[in-house]
């Protein structure tokens, strides 16, 4: 319960901080931290415009997407506090329910019959596919390390003691930052704020959404970021007292937003076809984590 509240709380600020970081990095003042939320609230109040090409898919997809993100949040624990639900293999559910959301955003983009949105849909499908193995290997490695198979049990029995486990934690955090950016289609290769054909993925998929639906999609994106922040902080806050862990959680989320902003500001603008290389590198890093776990468990003999 606590984790869901904290995730929702952090999602209020997350994208604001990210945008602010990018503004400062490019020498601007930038909008206030709460601007994204104000945008969303305004969108919720607005009417909608639909394309005549679209069907019912286009109208229900945002709701499905939003629901999938919320469902995914339910399994994420907070330190010693379980998520709303916790069961063996809950990370499989986590990954697959997010994939369902993606499925619907892709088909809703294709529903408009626009070549722009088709392009975004095709890329989204490809890139999220590449990211999937990295996540499973990563969590699998920690399952092996701790001997447990649910988010809650993995995090609560994760003991960062020796230097190599710190290294593993650090690597895992790095991988998750990248996965989070891919999941939100904010790959450093791509600049989500441009509308240049060459760089568009997620922005272009929601070109035709408006009003309430767009509000839902944007909110889901904010929550998704904070959700990954919560997983990352899960690696570090186990075993701390409640106030301390909440403070560390908020700090990690803050840091995560700044890092994401910095990465987007300084690492951007490769060519589009470098994206898969970037994502495949991610799988290699998670494989490295797996090897590290083998090392810790002394499986190499």
């Amino acid at each position, binding site marked *: 319960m606590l984790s869901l509240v904290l995730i929702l709380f952090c999602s209020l600020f997350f994208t604001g901080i990210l945008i602010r970081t990018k503004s400062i990095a490019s020498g601007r003042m930038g909008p206030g931290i709460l601007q994204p939320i104000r945008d969303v609230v305004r969108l919720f109040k607005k009417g909608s415009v639909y394309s005549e090409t679209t069907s019912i898919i286009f109208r229900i997809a945002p709701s499905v997407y939003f629901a999938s993100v919320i469902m995914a949040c339910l399994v994420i624990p907070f330190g010693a506090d379980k998520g709303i639900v916790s069961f063996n293999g809950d990370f499989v559910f986590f990954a697959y329910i997010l994939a369902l959301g993606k499925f619907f955003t892709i088909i809703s983009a294709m529903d408009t019959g626009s070549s722009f949105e088709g392009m975004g849909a095709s890329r989204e499908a490809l890139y999220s596919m590449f990211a999937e193995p990295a996540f499973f290997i990563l969590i*699998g490695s920690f399952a092996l390390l701790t001997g447990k*198979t649910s988010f809650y049990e993995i995090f609560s029995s994760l003991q960062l003691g020796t230097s190599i486990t710190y290294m593993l934690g650090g690597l895992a955090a790095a991988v998750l930052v990248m996965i989070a950016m891919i999941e939100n289609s904010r790959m450093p290769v791509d600049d989500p704020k441009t509308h240049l054909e060459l760089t568009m993925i997620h922005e272009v998929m929601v070109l035709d959404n408006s009003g309430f639906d767009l509000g839902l999609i944007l909110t889901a994106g904010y929550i998704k970021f904070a959700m990954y922040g919560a997983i990352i902080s899960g690696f570090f806050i186990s075993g701390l007292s409640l106030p301390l862990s909440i403070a560390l959680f908020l700090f990690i989320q803050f840091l995560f937003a700044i890092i994401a902003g910095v990465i987007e500001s300084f690492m951007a603008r490769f060519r589009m076809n470098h994206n898969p290389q970037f994502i495949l590198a991610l799988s290699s890093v998670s494989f490295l984590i797996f090897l590290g776990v083998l090392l810790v468990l002394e*499986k190499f003999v």
Partner: protein
Amino acid sequence: MALINILLLIEFLAIAAVLLFKTKVKGIVTVATVIIVSVITGYFAFRSLSGNSFAITLLGTVLFGQVKISVDALSAWFILTINFTMITGVLYGFNYMKKYRKREAQLTLHSIAFMVAHFALLGICSVQNGFVFLLLWEVLALSVFTLVIFDNTKAETIKAGINYLVQSHISIVFVMLGFIYVAYKTGSVSFDAIRDFSGSQTPLAGTALFLCFFTGFAIKAGFVPFHTWLPYAHPAAPSHVSGVMSGVVIKIGIYGILRMLLLIRTDYSTIGYIVLFISVITGLYGVMLAIIQHDLKKLLAYHSIENIGIIGIGIGLGCIGLGTGNKLMAALGFMGALLHTLNHSLFKSLLFYSAGNVLQSVHTVNMERLGGLIKKMPQTALLFLVSAIAICGLPPLNGFISEFLIYGGLYTWLFSASLLSLVSIVFSVAALALIGGLAILCFTKAFSIVFLGNPRSEQQPEITETSFWQLFPMYLAVAMMIMIGLFPTLFINALERPVCLFTGTPAYDTDFLKTGAVESVKTVSLLSIGFILFILFLIGLRKYAGKRKETHIRTTWDCGYGEKNPRIQYTAASFARSYLKHAKPILDIEKDETEVSGVFPEKKHYSSHPYDKIERVLIDKPLKLIDSITDLFLFLQNGQLQRYILYGIIFIASVIAFPQIYGKIQSLIYFLNNL
């Protein structure tokens, strides 16, 4: 005894009726027969699943020996799976075939073949005698061949059918070799002989025997590299036959593999690793080729190969679990595999039926010519969407449950593992995740290109939704899928007995199943229900929020150019293009393009045809080689009657002369020896 006679009597009466009556009655007789036979056998299967397994021994003839017929829990699971899909298949087919009422003779043959195929499938699942098994296997192959070539005016259909027939017989050869070997050693063709024989042999011999059977069954099931018949046969067949073939006929291969696992006593770990390796390759290769297909039915056919891979991963896991004594892992592997067998038979048949609806309304399944069908055929589109979500293994539907169990098995394996197995786990998990991702790419493409956007070619205005009665069996399948997705514990409980056959635990001692992923499924089902309710709530909220606001209908955002042109849309080829660029080294694509050149370029064209690399290497090349060898003897076949008579004379003369010459040589040797 009486039961078998009753079933046979029903079949013979039905065949007679189909032969005698008018076209309209033929269909009704077929439907009735399939349903009656399903109900009777289904009753015994249900009893068997709840613990009263059924076994009789027929006093066979000299030829067969004693024929044992038994329906244990494994057979029961497959019989129920087969019956369900056969019922939806025959109901769908009844309406689908109404368009072909004029082709009476063919319809007669088709109806008979359908009933015979059903009977053969049920028989294969329950006989315990190698000879009868092979006989039924052959009957199945021939009847399915007859079903496939219904549309026999097309050369492609005949070619696909013959391809299937040839490969089925290669499959039979391998299975037969296995039975003959055991019969040669023990003098018995009963299944018990296999069990006793393999128990008395070294593990290596057992493994070899299993691999012989496995190769035979793998051809039927469509494991890579034995899959090449599948992408031809499925698209060529009428849609209900494709659905039934992909749903249950290839699953009979899975049944064979599982049955042999129960019989052959050997080193299960080695077998497990082999099956796991082949299955991972099968899964990945199947879906990788599926994505680049532009023919909807061919896409679905390749996707069947992928799902066979997932089932195989489950079986492999189960074997390794048995070999290492990890009961929970074995149970999860087999449970996942069996449940996925049922699941796949449901959603794949449904997808083929949907493709059939599209084919009958638009007269093409070439995706590049389709689009926007959701507006004209909303129910078909919805059914396709539901099954697409299920086949991608996404919650809240049934595909997720079986994949979840297999993931559970993989993660259970983690804790009792050596280095070799850990590396296998990582690759299997990564492959399974990748398969999932690729499946999403594949089915977002299939669904959105066929049903969404604007039509990509001139469509006839009279495209309409299919009739209710044709949609009805599809709704049956969807209802079943939703049942499994939302109330999986029902089915998992039913699976306890089949799984216990493998793990060797008595049926009352299933406490070890009450942990891990099996237990988690309950939570998953609650979450799935919650998820659906939450979506409904959001949709309601959205409706409420939109009540007092303006809603406009405009064109799709077009950068202000405003030219409505359906050709500007993404196509099947362009959707898969960025994927294709990365997968190119593994795949085989024939391109036909002309470069644009000059100041005023002329009309150019570009087309690409995906081809199967394994087929090129494994089928085409050997065939070419055989061709070139036989070509050497072409001079003999020159069409002159005199020559042929000469050959005959030479043959007869040599037959007569041979013993003479042989005797002479012998006496010569004798003479030389005496010297």
